[in-house]
């Protein structure tokens, strides 16, 4: 599927209740802003809660709110038209103000790829939903993210430090991590 049709398909799963009011907005091209609530109504042509972007990346990027992450991921995997069954990269990213996770997905049947980004502004106690039940590889990948970024994943079966010892303080890959002894800053 092309990025355009993917965007239309995926956007239709999470219609924006706000956009329903000014219904003449049918443009789904780029950079719509979404709001926080999930709508139960089905309005396929309405702009979505998800933010799509292709700027500066070779993939179609979807920015999703943490609340919709799990249902979006479940649909991406199960929908016969998208079928993203291969999670080939899961990276934690510290964007400065917010922490987040980037999911790189590929479909082994349709051979299209997509990037899902989720961000949480809570740096003290960041929590996201685990996608372990959708892709089993996420178990280890999420443990790695937890280890280095301190992002907690709900419903994760075995969330504990993977590389570092249990007593380790701090999360080393965060930008504000300071270790004057072991880190060599050039």
């Amino acid at each position, binding site marked *: 599927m092309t990025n355009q049709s993917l965007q239309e398909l995926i956007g239709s799963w999470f219609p924006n209740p706000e956009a329903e009011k000014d219904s003449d907005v049918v443009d789904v091209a780029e950079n719509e802003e979404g709001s926080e609530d999930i709508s139960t109504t089905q309005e396929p042509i309405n702009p979505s809660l998800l933010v799509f972007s292709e700027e500066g*990346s070779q993939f179609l990027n979807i920015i999703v709110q943490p609340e919709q992450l799990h249902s979006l991921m479940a649909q991406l995997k199960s929908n016969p038209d998208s079928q993203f069954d291969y999670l*080939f*990269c899961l990276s934690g990213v510290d964007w400065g103000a917010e922490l987040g996770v980037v999911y*790189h997905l590929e479909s082994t049947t349709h051979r299209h790829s997509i990037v899902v980004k989720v961000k949480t502004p809570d740096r003290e106690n960041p929590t996201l939903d685990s996608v372990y039940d959708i892709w089993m590889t996420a178990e280890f990948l999420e443990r790695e993210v937890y280890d280095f970024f301190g992002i907690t994943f709900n419903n994760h079966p075995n969330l504990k430090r993977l*590389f570092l010892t249990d007593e380790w303080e701090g999360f080393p*890959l965060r930008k504000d991590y300071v270790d004057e002894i072991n880190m060599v800053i050039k």
Partner: protein
Amino acid sequence: MEETIVETNFKSEEYFINMGPQHPATHGVLRLLLTIDGEIIKKVEPDLGYIHRSIEKMCERDSYQQIVHLTDRMDYLSSNINNEAVCLAVENALQLEVPDRVKVIRTIIGELTRISSHCLWWGVMGMDVGALTTYFYGFRDREMINDIFEETCGARLTMNYNVPGGLMFDIHPNFIKRVKDFIVHFKTKIPEYDRLLTGNVIFHKRTKGVGVLTKEDAISFGASGPVGRASGYSCDVRKHRPYSALDKVTFNEAIKTDGDTFARYEVRIQEMWESLSIIEQLIDNIPEGEYRVATNAVIKLPKGEFYQRVETARGELGVYIISTGTKNPYRLKFRSPGFSNLSLLNHIAVGGKIGDLVATMATLDLVIPDIDR
């Protein structure tokens, strides 16, 4: 009065065993916490991080040229392909077109790296199932490739031959002749490998039906490389997203459907043949031209996100660069094949014996620095 309860049933008891971090079968400093009932494995829990060097954090302070040499130290058995991945990512980001000569040389050396990695794997695989002699035969053939690398790149393992924009220096004048000698030599040796190990009845007993991974599980666990292909899952990045000169050659993707240890073994043996065929197609057709395109001394990537996928000897390596337009990456993530392949160990080893676990681990072909980046 206290009641004493006498247990009449004979009870078996599960117990823990620490396999590693110093254990002959873990090939490095991997620690497995095994829960065992007699000989039967109930649970495998890997404990990682004994040699973690936080390469991703180091990358955030290094320039793009310096990052390349760090990747040698990840999966050191396919170091050249790792180098290539970062270089391709940087070149794609800069939209820099490298000369054909560079592409062809990169592909040849990459395939040689794959063969050398598989040679080592073959030797170690034999050793893990108890046939110690294979180790030396595998190393003998690997030695020839290492000599080629040493002559051209200056180092045997951590070559750092690729730089963003091309190669550090041109191939050695002896390179083509040596590679051709190697092809002739190695074509007589793979059948020998088959006679010694592949056909052996004990080896069949040890590997067939052991550690079975279905196709669905392989995809769900993100298995890639020979592990994924042995489960019938076409995941060769060289085929689906060809890079360098791989779009100019024809080769078959080695796919088996059994998903057991023997299938993974066969896939790797077949991959050696395919790599030989790729090298044969290219070695006589190295185009003349520059070996390097000049880049700025300080490489600054444009703002954005770049992802490059390559196929190392172990599977799919991904380089994910988030750039903010400075000379250092804002975030650099390596998607390492070994990490995903390790995560499925518990899934396929449970229910087997200790000997099965060792054979299964041997065909997952784990390189611990690749996991403990």
